């Protein structure tokens, strides 16, 4: 991507794109994108709306869904696409193609877990809902914490990919936001994962955001 680091500060400001993120007022599929902006220290318009107001914005969305991001007015859809694009723009996408692929692995694995987390939330049948919740705590969460702990440990224990913060770290952090609400001791046997979480929470702009963020169940 274009490197403006040799240009004068004025030109840099003039050429920095304007970002507008459109999503509901929950974490859901928008939070990872917000994390990327905050971790990278980049300004953006965090536009949040209710379902009623969504109807006004929907025609602007490329495929009728949120989140979508406007970059100098050009729209981009699909939450992980947006996260990946911003990661590349902001230097959070690893040092080379292989590291980018390792980050994608984590994003996709986080997505697998996210899909499981969503199942009981959208299940209407009470019996089935109970079953799915039990499956989450007994099977799904233990399986994924072990996979992530193993992956983190294999890379030295601090960062998931390479030796600095990447989208991979933010994606895993984000994936456990909802699970930790219902199962706060989920990571007790995963010291590296637990420490990585504290590390992400300690990032300056992210820490301030997390402290004042309104609670949402998903």
């Amino acid at each position, binding site marked *: *991507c274009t490197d403006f680091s040799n240009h004068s500060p004025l030109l840099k400001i003039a050429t920095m794109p304007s970002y507008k993120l459109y999503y509901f007022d929950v974490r859901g599929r928008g939070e990872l994108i917000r994390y990327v902006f905050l971790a990278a220290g980049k300004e953006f318009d965090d536009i949040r709306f209710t379902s009623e107001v969504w109807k006004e914005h929907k025609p602007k969305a*490329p*495929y009728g869904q949120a989140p979508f991001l406007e970059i100098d007015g*050009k729209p*981009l*859809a*699909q939450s*992980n*696409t*947006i996260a*990946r*694009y911003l990661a*590349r*723009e902001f230097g959070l996408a690893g040092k080379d*193609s*292989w590291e*980018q*692929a*390792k980050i*994608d*692995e984590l*994003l*996709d*694995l986080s997505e697998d877990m996210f*899909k499981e987390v969503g199942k009981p939330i959208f299940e209407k049948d009470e019996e089935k809902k109970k079953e799915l919740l039990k499956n989450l705590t007994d099977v799904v969460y233990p399986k994924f914490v072990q*996979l992530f702990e193993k*992956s983190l440990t294999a890379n030295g224990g601090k960062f998931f990919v390479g030796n600095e913060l990447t989208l991979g770290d933010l994606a895993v952090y984000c994936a456990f936001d909802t699970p930790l609400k219902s199962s706060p001791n989920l990571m007790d046997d995963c010291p590296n994962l637990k420490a990585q979480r504290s590390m992400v929470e300690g990032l300056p702009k992210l820490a301030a955001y997390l402290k004042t963020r309104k609670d949402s169940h998903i």
Partner: protein
Amino acid sequence: MMPCYKFYYFDARGRGELCRYALHAKQRDFEDIRLGGDKWQNFKPSTPFGQMPVLDVDGKKLAQSGAIARYLARELDLAGKNCWEQAACDQYMELADDMFTELVKSFFEKDEAKKAEVMKNLNDVVLPKFLALFESSLNRNGGCYFVGDGLTIADLAVYSAFDTPLKRCPTLLDSFPKLKAQRAKIEGLPKLGEYIKNRKPTDI
């Protein structure tokens, strides 16, 4: 020195076929290793996350079908010309995956009544929505390719997503001329066309 690629997956299309398409489309040599039963169980512990597909690149392993497809796209020049085109490709890959996820629901549902409901939703709501969406996307980009002016992983991803629906309903694309033409174009590519023609049919 070109790296040595070994691609491990089941003997089906499923979540592996897109990666195979990328390699064939660029006529890139690779070992197309298909595992099942005991052979898969023996291989499983050496995979990053206990799943397939896995791409072995000179001994280094990569998991997750999307990650592999994106990596191959970058390596094989199927990822668009710049950062924005790469994002556009990602968009189509995610949309194709959304459609694939709905398909998988219909395939694995065991309860007969629920299955009938899921199939009806697939045929009446899901497929029409995605058909219209992909057709209009192609039109907006000039009608030939999904992104830019050449073949990308986006074209292959959408092609792959319609493999199973078209088995069930061969006339599915009849009212979608651009999609139909794009499909024919992909089938006309030298190595990829041969592979598709001679491939053993599988349900998914």
